[in-house]
């Protein structure tokens, strides 16, 4: 916990964390200082002048709050007539050449210009001369579309490409009312985090080609989630909506701040991975390639498993810890072998030392914690001995070039429990659809050993069953939430020691010694 200092805002005493600037420190206690250019990840630029405040200590009458650190006894004025006039004046200047095309602007509803107009401006325009016209719908590359007229020149996007991605594609050229954000001709946005400028943009100047004109911001339900695109476990918002007569669909992922994991940003690939949650899903159950009611498919699967001598369960490194525990209990119950072989998830050399990781699965650390073998040798050996293969959303071996594996797959009895329609689910003796990670709650451990919990976001019109309930229907014993939590606490002493049963919002960092405490 950081040291606290007491200061006065409009004469009222408030206690805030030291070491922060006024904007960040007062935001925590619910006091808003309007600002465009300041962003905690990009630092104080001081160019927008919207955060000017008064400090009663003899310094210049107005100072930018973004560049003013909190200090004991500081007397801050936010509501004097002078400050209010400055805020109105800055807003008036910002709006002089703004097209005010909110009805067709994607940012409407989550736009700082709109919000601040309502809170701090509220005056009619005095403009009687034509506005300066600039570039519209410029394709900046990487799926970013720019509207120069809506821009307030806060330079957040420019600073992002210079400070964070260090690719520097964007710049503000010209000066005065002709100033605009642009690219050097022939050098478009070319980095794997470019779409973060859409979130950073406080107004509708930067929009996403993918999201444009799809949904109004106020219709979207925003649930907290964890990206399953790689082993980083970036925190996201899952923005989804059920339109009338349609299914609950995800329209975008946005980064969610977590200083322990991803900070303020996510990669573009993870951001776009929401498409896979909506599309290509396994919709109905099948027995021997014929559509079948789900209940019947589950019963048949259970009978076939019970009739087999040597069952191999193959669990995905994307399954939640709870699902892995349930599937492991099924293995114990049936005397089955369990493997987590999934080398196909690993794209060596793809990691960039920032957020993107080689391992494209969300919970490999969970497999390790539960001591589920992930080696190829063990998988191949178990497969050769097995007569039934039950695949829990892990069919990466399907393209295995080894002829022994390929030959075995042809004679083996197969059951695919799958979120998506895949080559394996199409070929499997029984195919059972399962809920994907936006449709269930669970816990995953990222590559740094941070245990994170995510809730259920999307509720489909016809929900696919969760992996845990499928495991229960196949004969697993450990499937009740309390029992699963208890089992997790046995594996993870830090969780057992925690006061609450809830995994903290920012995750629980597991130490190496905790991982070694594993109960098999």
């Amino acid at each position, binding site marked *: 916990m950081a040291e606290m200092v007491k200061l006065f805002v409009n004469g009222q005493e408030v206690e805030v964390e030291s070491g922060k600037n006024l904007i960040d420190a007062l935001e925590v206690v619910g006091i808003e200082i309007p600002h465009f250019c300041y962003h905690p990840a990009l630092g104080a630029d001081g160019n927008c002048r919207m955060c000017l405040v008064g400090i009663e200590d003899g310094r210049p009458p107005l100072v930018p709050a973004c560049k003013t650190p909190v200090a004991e006894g500081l007397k801050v004025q936010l509501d004097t007539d002078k400050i209010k006039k400055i805020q109105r004046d800055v807003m008036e200047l910002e709006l002089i050449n703004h097209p005010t095309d909110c009805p067709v602007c994607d940012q409407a509803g989550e736009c700082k210009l709109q919000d601040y107009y309502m809170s701090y401006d509220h005056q009619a325009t005095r403009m009687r001369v034509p506005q300066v016209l600039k570039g519209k719908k410029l394709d900046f590359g990487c799926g970013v579309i720019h509207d120069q007229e809506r821009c307030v020149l806060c330079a957040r996007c*420019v600073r992002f490409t210079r400070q964070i991605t260090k*690719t*520097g*594609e964007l*710049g503000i050229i*010209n000066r005065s009312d*002709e100033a605009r954000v*642009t690219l050097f001709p022939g*050098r478009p946005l070319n980095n794997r985090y470019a779409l973060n400028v859409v979130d950073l943009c406080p107004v509708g100047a930067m929009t996403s080609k993918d999201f444009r004109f799809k949904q109004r911001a106020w219709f979207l339900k925003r649930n907290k989630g964890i990206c399953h695109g790689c082993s980083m476990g970036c925190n996201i918002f899952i923005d989804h909506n059920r339109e009338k007569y349609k299914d609950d669909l995800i329209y975008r992922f946005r980064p969610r701040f977590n200083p322990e994991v991803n900070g303020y940003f996510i990669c573009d690939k993870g951001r776009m991975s929401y498409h896979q949650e909506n599309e290509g899903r396994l919709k109905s159950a099948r027995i021997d390639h014929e559509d079948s009611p789900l209940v019947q498919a589950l019963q048949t699967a259970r009978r076939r498993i019970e009739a087999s001598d040597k069952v191999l369960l193959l669990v995905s490194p994307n399954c939640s810890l709870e699902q892995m525990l349930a599937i492991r209990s099924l293995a114990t119950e049936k005397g089955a072998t369990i493997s987590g072989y999934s080398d196909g998830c690993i794209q060596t050399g793809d990691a960039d030392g920032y957020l993107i990781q080689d391992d494209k699965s969300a919970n490999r650390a969970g497999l390790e914690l539960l001591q589920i073998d992930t080696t190829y040798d063990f998988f191949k050996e178990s497969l050769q001995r097995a007569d039934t293969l039950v695949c829990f959303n892990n069919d990466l071996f399907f393209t295995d070039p080894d002829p022994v594996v390929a030959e075995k797959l042809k004679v083996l009895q197969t059951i695919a429990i799958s979120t998506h329609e895949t080559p394996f689910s199409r070929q499997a003796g029984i195919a059972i659809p399962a809920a994907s990670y936006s449709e269930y709650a669970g816990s995953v451990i990222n590559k740094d050993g941070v245990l994170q919990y995510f809730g259920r976001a999307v509720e489909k019109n016809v929900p696919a069953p969760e992996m845990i309930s499928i495991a229960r229907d196949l004969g697993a014993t450990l499937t009740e939430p309390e029992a699963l939590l208890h089992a997790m606490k046995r594996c993870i002493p830090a969780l057992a020691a925690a006061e609450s049963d809830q995994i903290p919002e920012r995750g629980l960092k597991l130490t190496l010694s905790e991982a070694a405490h594993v109960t098999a």
Partner: protein
Amino acid sequence: MSDRSQLIFTGKPFQYDAERDAEFERLVKRYPTRESMILPALWLTQEQEGWIPAEAIAYIADRIGTFASQVYEAATFYTMYHLHPMGRNHICICRTLSCWLRGKQEIVDYLRDEIGLKPGQVSEDGKFSLEEVECLGHCGSAPVVQVNGEFHENMDVDKLKSLLAGLK
């Protein structure tokens, strides 16, 4: 100030001649960071070519080791850099407050109506080019016109007429 975002690609690769190459290497030692070379490097280009083509901006960025967008910013911010070929006589008219209040618009209108010369353009015969620029620092004797780098103070249309008559 007019929009200066339009760069011209010549289609030919740019590089400094031997003299300017040596000058670049001499100047770069003067500064703590290489980014400081952006303005001198643009000057060197303008000295060599008379103006600054798009290829030169990319060349400067790559040679300094900075972003092309950053050199582009500087080149468009300062009106002293010419981003297209200029006329034989380059006229700058200050458009900042004092000069505007003291009648710079009459001079601009005269050039537009009588010579057909608009800010940011070159006259058809290539004799004149015109740019509206930000403050030239001679507010006390506004309006101010700069022709080929030379200042002419307290200007009006008549004084401009006789000034232009003396130019080739």
